[in-house]
C-alpha cells in the first residue's frame, strides 16, 4: 500500500517537475508522512523522503531534531569512588541528527561548505557555554559519542537513490528512542561542489494515545496526579486486603 502511494507520489512529482511552472524551483521534496506517532508499542519508524530535481545533480538530506541545552558531566575518582565532577554546558544541541546523501559527502562539497551547512556529525554547531575551557573539545566529543551510541546521531549517511537523474528517494530510519518535537528535514541540491537549491520540510514526532495523556497530565497537573496516584494505591491495597482476608 505504502509502496503504491509512494510510486504514485513520485510519478506526480516527476510530472510536476516536467512542467514549465515547476521548473522554477530547482528542487522539490516531501515526506510520505509528516507525523510520527509514538504509541504504546512504538518500535521506531521508517520515513520516506522523495523528490525531484530540475536536472542532474546530487542530493544531501540533513534531519535535525529540536535543539536543547545539554550538560556533559565527567566522572572522577574521589576517595575511591567515581563521582560526577566536572560539568560543561552546550547550547543548541540537536536531539537527533540524521544524514543522507547520494554520494560520499567529501566528493560532493568542500570542507568549508560542509561546515557552513552543518553536514556531517563533526560539523554540528554545538555552542559551548564556556568556549575558553581547555576540555571543551573533549567533552563535546563525549557528547557526540554518547548520542551515536544511542542511535540519535547516525554517523553513517543513508544512501539516496536516484531513479533516472531527476527522481530521488531515501528511507530514513527513526529509532525508537527519539524525543518528541518538531524536526526539520533540510534537502540540498548540489552541483559542481556548490549548493544550488534547498528546501526544508517539517516532521512532527509526538506521543499519542493513553500513555501520552497520562504523561501530559502528570506534567501539567502534578499535584492532582499525585493525589490520584495515592488514591489508586489506597484502593489497590484495600482490594488486596479484601481479596485475601477470608482464606
Amino acid at each position: 500500500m505504502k509502496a503504491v502511494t509512494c510510486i504514485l507520489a513520485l510519478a506526480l512529482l516527476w510530472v510536476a517537475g516536467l512542467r514549465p511552472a515547476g521548473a522554477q524551483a530547482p528542487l522539490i521534496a516531501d515526506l510520505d508522512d509528516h507525523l510520527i506517532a509514538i504509541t504504546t508499542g512504538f518500535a521506531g519508524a521508517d520515513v520516506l523522503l522523495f523528490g525531484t530535481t530540475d536536472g542532474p545533480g546530487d542530493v544531501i538530506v540533513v534531519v535535525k531534531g529540536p535543539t536543547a541545552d545539554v550538560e556533559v558531566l565527567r566522572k572522577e575518582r574521589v576517595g575511591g569512588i567515581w563521582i560526577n565532577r566536572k560539568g560543561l554546558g552546550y547550547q543548541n544541541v540537536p536531539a537527533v541528527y540524521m544524514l543522507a546523501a547520494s554520494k560520499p559527502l567529501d566528493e560532493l562539497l568542500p570542507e568549508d561548505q560542509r561546515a557552513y551547512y552543518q553536514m556531517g556529525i563533526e560539523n554540528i554547531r554545538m555552542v559551548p557555554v564556556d568556549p575558553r575551557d581547555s576540555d571543551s573539545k573533549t567533552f563535546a566529543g563525549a557528547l557526540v559519542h554518547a548520542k551515536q551510541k544511542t542511535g540519535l546521531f547516525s554517523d553513517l549517511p543513508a544512501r539516496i537513490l536516484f531513479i533516472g537523474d531527476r527522481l530521488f528517494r531515501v528511507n530514513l530510519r527513526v529509532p525508537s528512542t527519539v524525543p518528541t518535537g518538531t524536526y526539520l528535514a533540510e534537502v540540498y541540491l548540489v552541483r559542481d561542489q556548490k549548493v544550488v537549491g534547498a528546501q526544508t520540510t517539517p516532521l512532527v514526532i509526538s506521543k499519542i494515545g493513553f500513555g501520552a495523556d497520562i504523561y501530559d497530565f502528570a506534567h501539567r497537573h502534578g499535584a492532582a496526579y499525585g493525589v490520584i496516584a495515592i488514591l489508586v494505591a489506597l484502593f489497590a491495597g484495600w482490594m488486596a486486603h479484601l481479596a485475601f482476608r477470608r482464606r
Partner: protein
Amino acid sequence: MKGKAVTWATAILDWFLGLQIYLPIAEVALNVFLLLGLGAGVGVLSGLFGVGGGFLLTPLLIFVGVPPAVAVATQSNQVVASSVSGVLAHWARGNVDVKMGSVMLAGGMLGSSVGVLLFTLLKTLGQIDLVIAIAYVITLSGIGIMMAVESIRALRRVRKSMAPKKLHQHNWAQGLPFKMRFRKSRLYISALLPGGIGFIVGIMSALMGVGGAFLLVPAMIYLLGMATGAVIGTSLFQIIFVQAWVTFWQANTNQTVDILLALILTIGGVVGAQIGGRLGAKLPGEQLRFLMAIVILVTAGGLLYQLVAHPADLYTIVIAGGGH
C-alpha cells in the same frame, strides 16, 4: 503433529515475550510479565521475612531499565498500596499504636519533605544516582550484617535455649523533654525520640524509594524498647502516610511517579506476599533469614563494585529541562 505443537509453543512464547507495555512516565517499554514477576518475587521475600522489599525492588527496576529517579518515586507509590493491605490485617488484631504512629508520622512528614527537596537538588546537580547508590550500599550492608548476626544468634539460641537479653533504656534519653505516655507500646518517653526516628527514616525513604520498615522496626524495638506486638502494625501505619506524602511531592515537583508501573508492581506484590506468608509458616525461618542476609550482602557488594570500579563510560549527558 509434533511440528504443530512446537509452532504453537513458540507462538505462545512469542506472545508472552512480546507483551510489552509502554510505561508513560518512565518512557520505556517493558514486558508485563517481567514486571509482574519482579513484584511477585519481591512480594514473596517480603511475606517470608516481614520486610517491605522496596530496597530490593528499586535496584531491580533500575537494572531492567527504569530510570533511577522514576524507580524511586514509583516505589513510594507502590509502598502505599502494600502498606494499606498490611496495616488492615494488623488493625483487625488491635496491633496499631495510633498515638506512637502519629508522633513518628510528624517527624516522618518533615523528614521526607527534606528528602524530596534533597532529591530535587541532587537531581539538578547530577549527583542523584550516586547518592541513591551510596545510600543503598550503606543500608543494604547494614541490614545484611544485622540479619546475618541475628540469625546466627537465633540459631545458637535454639540450641542452647537461652532467653533473649533484655535491653535497658538509654539514660540520656530519659532526660529529654516532651514526655508522653504510649499505652499500647507500654512506654513513657520523650516524643522527640519517635519523632526523630521518623525524621531520619523519612529522609532515607524519600531518597531511596523505600518504606523504611527495615530501619523503623529495629529502631522501634531496640532504641525505643516498644512492646514487639505493636511494632509492625504501627510502622506500617506511619509508612502509609509518609509514603503518600512522598508520592505527592515527587509527583508535584519531579513528575517521576509512574501510576501504571506502581499498579503492575502492586498486583504482583500482593499475590507474592500471600505466597510468601504461607511459605514462611512452613519453612525453617532462621536458616532462610541467613540466606536472605547473604543475598542482601551480595547485592550491596555488587553496587559497591559499580561505585569503585573504573566506569565503562566516564561521561554522562544531562538534558536541561527534561529527561531524568
